[in-house]
């Protein structure tokens, strides 16, 4: 008698999650472990990464402190990753900077972390054949890729870039059965968003615009599980808006 695996389970899968030291990445790692995955987590802050590691369910997980804006960090992560069935690029940074104050350094910082790191890490993993046939790659983009809130030009551009990169990559890897998709979350309770509020942004007014209220990291984690699991095996080159309805009536203030 054959045992049919639940298509929503991640049991038997190894999943790499970047940005796992806080916020969305942290919750994705925890939820993936709850769904049966063995996870490889990475983040820049060793203490917080260890805290995530301690919250994981099950055994056999690996935690690697790495700065993915540096090639060494990427190489290190590729080196320790065994065959992966899923990769979630959740690492990212954000900073409110009005357009007239942006400069090369700001653009470089944002793109290094949000765009180049996930692209180069994916390249590194593919070059070393670290991603299994039928593996699923997921970029955490942002609703900003569509909406472009005030003072987020660099961030919005860096997240939009992921959509284009994802679509081209998906065609290149489809013949190996690999999939790649983007999730574009709206406003989710995370330390990154708290940081923006402390940076002087009047965020509460924005949060009130979301019809279902603000999201929780769990919401992004549940969607990620769906996109990593075999349940979504026919979905690729897709971006999924996960925003509690924020973009539905979207006007210029969103």
């Amino acid at each position, binding site marked *: 008698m054959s045992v049919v695996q639940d298509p*929503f389970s991640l049991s038997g899968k190894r999943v790499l999650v970047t940005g796992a030291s806080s916020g969305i990445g942290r919750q994705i790692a925890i939820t993936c472990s709850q769904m049966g995955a063995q996870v490889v987590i990475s983040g820049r802050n060793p203490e917080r990464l260890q805290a995530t590691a301690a919250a994981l369910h099950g055994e056999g997980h690996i935690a690697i402190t790495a700065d993915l804006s540096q090639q060494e960090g990427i190489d290190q992560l590729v080196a320790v990753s065994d065959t992966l069935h899923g990769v979630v690029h959740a690492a990212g940074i954000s900073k409110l900077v009005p357009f007239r104050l942006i400069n090369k350094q700001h653009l470089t910082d944002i793109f290094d972390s949000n765009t180049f790191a996930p692209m180069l890490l994916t390249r590194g993993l593919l070059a070393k054949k670290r991603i299994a046939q039928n593996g699923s790659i997921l970029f955490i983009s942002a609703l900003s890729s569509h909406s472009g809130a005030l003072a987020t030009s660099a961030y919005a551009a860096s997240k939009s870039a992921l959509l284009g990169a994802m679509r081209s990559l998906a065609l290149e890897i489809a013949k190996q059965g690999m999939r790649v998709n983007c999730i574009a979350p709206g406003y989710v309770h995370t330390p990154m968003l708290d940081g923006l509020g402390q940076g002087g942004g009047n965020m509460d007014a924005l949060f009130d615009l979301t019809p*279902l209220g603000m999201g929780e990291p769990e919401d992004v984690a549940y969607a990620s599980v769906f996109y990593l699991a075999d349940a979504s095996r026919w979905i690729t080159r897709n971006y*999924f808006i996960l925003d509690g309805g924020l973009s539905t009536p979207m006007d210029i203030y969103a």
Partner: protein
Amino acid sequence: MVTGASSGLGQHIAIRFAQRGARLIITGRDKSRLQTTYDQLKGEGHVQVTANLTIAEERTFLAKSASNLNGLVHCAGIQKHCPIRQLSEQLMTEMYQVNFLAPVMLTQSLLQANAIAQQGSILFMLSTAAHIGTRGLGPYSAMKSGLIGIIKCLALEQAKRKIRVNGISPSVIATPMWDVHQELLTQQKARHPLGLGTLDDVANGAIYMLSDASRWVTGTSLVMDGGAVI
């Protein structure tokens, strides 16, 4: 509640939902085929209601048989190939009644009767044809696009009750409907980077959209297409 449950996607979704533990109200026009679906539902307490949803009285009857729904999946629909140059008012009216008016007014009846529970999930079966142009599919495409408008507005109207409203947009699924069009099916397969989808793929997407795992998803559409559509 799953409409169009007497065949195809609706039937498969109903069967998979029951396997996942849902208690179902299934509806369809064909009594004996609906019975076939009913007989395949796992678990107990399911209800079947034979109804033609293009008829107001039958929608009202169906709405009365439901209460406290946690999910509603509109699968009933027809597809007809017709270049717009050859379109007749009769064909357009039929497409409108089956693919647009029936799901919209059934939703209206259920909401009016408070038959949909807080945090319920309403899912409209769309198609990639709702998002892209396809030669000869104008009437079908228009009705599916029209439903996107309903989805967005209804999502906002029902957000205060945490009821979510979304679409699911599959492209070509290899169903028995295609058996007589093998050549077309081969062409379709070639334009899908991951090949064609299965009934299970769409059912799994619907399971995600109906479950609490997607409690923060509203006003949008889950596109499933093997990478074929931008």
